């Protein structure tokens, strides 16, 4: 489903963020990407929605090489991905409802159907009934939930999250981690970068560890997740 083949990324000035990385993520997997700051986690995730392009190698999404995707085709790729970034990147002059509605406006969904989907997405992240509130009035964890609702409202098959718990206190971070686990259990492929892989350990995810732009560990879970086994 997601394939990295010898992917390298060098920035102007000679800095190498990724140095020949290869791995494959199968449909329905939960993958936690960890490593120190500057290991290349964010760069790797940015290559999937073509926020960045690789300097060498190929990135394939559902068999399609997106490394050389024409600029005009990129929006259509992104519509099939759910993106959650480190900062929530909400629009603070719009209500929670309008923020979550934005992807559906972009894809031109009929307003009635779009409103139902927004309601369902807000309910899924535990913010039902709070659509009229403005983001500034929400806590950091709630803002990140709004961003997650916005990412799932288009019902993507792949969810990519770059440090979604970075600025949250432990309780909120655990809630967010649980949300991603529940999406994965619903069949969504989830790829998350985090400093704190232990947040997701209960989900028994596949772990990819990056160091200095290289993949140094790829550990797949064995047996059923602890919660399910219980």
């Amino acid at each position: 489903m997601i394939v990295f083949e010898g992917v390298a990324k060098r920035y102007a000035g000679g800095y190498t963020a990724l140095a020949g990385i290869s791995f494959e993520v199968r449909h329905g997997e939960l993958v936690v990407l960890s490593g120190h700051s500057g290991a290349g986690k964010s760069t790797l995730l940015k290559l999937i929605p073509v926020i960045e392009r690789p300097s060498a190698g190929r990135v394939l999404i559902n068999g399609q090489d997106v490394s050389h995707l024409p600029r005009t085709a990129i929006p259509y790729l992104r519509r099939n991905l759910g993106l959650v970034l480190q900062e929530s990147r909400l629009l603070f002059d719009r209500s929670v409802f309008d923020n979550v509605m934005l992807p559906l406006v972009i894809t031109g969904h009929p307003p009635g159907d779009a409103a139902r989907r927004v309601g369902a997405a807000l309910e899924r992240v535990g913010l039902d009934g709070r659509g009229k509130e403005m983001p500034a009035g929400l806590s950091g964890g709630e803002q990140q939930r709004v961003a997650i609702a916005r990412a799932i409202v288009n019902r993507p098959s792949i969810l990519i999250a770059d440090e979604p718990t970075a600025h949250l206190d432990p309780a909120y971070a655990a809630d967010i981690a649980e949300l991603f686990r529940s999406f994965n259990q619903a069949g969504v492929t989830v790829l998350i970068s985090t400093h704190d892989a232990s947040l997701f350990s209960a989900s028994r995810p596949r772990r990819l560890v990056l160091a200095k732009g290289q993949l140094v560990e790829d550990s797949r879970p064995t047996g059923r997740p602890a919660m399910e086994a219980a």
Partner: protein
Amino acid sequence: MIHWLYLHLRAIAHALRRLAAQPLSTLLSALVVGIALSLPGGGYLLLDNVSSLARGVSGAPEISLFLDMDAGPEDRAAIEQGLKATPDLGSYRFVARDEALRQLEASGLGDVLGGLSANPLPDAFVLSLREEDPELFERMAEQMAAWPKVAHVQLDSAWVKRLHALLGLGRSAVLMLAGLLGFALVIVTFNTIRLQILTQRQEIAVSRLLGATDPFIRRPFYWFGGLQGALGGLVALGTVSLGVRALSAPVTALAETYGAVFVLSGPDWRAALAIVAFAALLGWLGAAISVRRHLAGA
């Protein structure tokens, strides 16, 4: 098609919200655009009015054939025969010297002749030709000037030609003014859209991440520019209409002092539509240039 219309309707709603969110800025921009466009708009309207007047008097350019003071009925009959034999002649009428005097008195210039003991005006024939060809007029005038008992031939079309030349010059000047001020309008919109792009940088970036295409992002800015231009066009229309209303009475009074009937008319619906559409088009153009220039870096 329905999807395309839906996206445009959303873009219009978005642009209207942006205009309504900054009422003072919107009003000032509309005033700048409107005042700038009211100058060429008013100039064009004035020229249009004068053109109508010129068309009215130049509908049948004429040649006046003044006879010698001692020309008798036989001489007039001979000249009339000559006129009948002229193939390009459309029509003619005889104006007796007494009738000419009465017309002059009626026009308010009777006082000029008050001190004279006798009528100084000659008999005359007023001719019109089948074709309004200035060269034909001049050729005929030369030919008739050689006829016996013809004292003077006057081409009444000469001043009309001069008026038309002046109107042509005026039109060129108005076009140049419209071009210059239209360019200014494009610059105003260009700058407004640049500021809009700067203030919406975050929204643009987020929309792109969520899969917005370039047309989706550009559309509200195009509509913003077009609507701002149209608002300016409405202000220009209002300014011109108010100007016409204010000047109408003094102009009519001035025309009456020359014995003429002239009513200054305001823009009709076609002219009104043209002004608003032209302003909207310029706004759209300014937005398009600005979006092309600034959105790539947003």
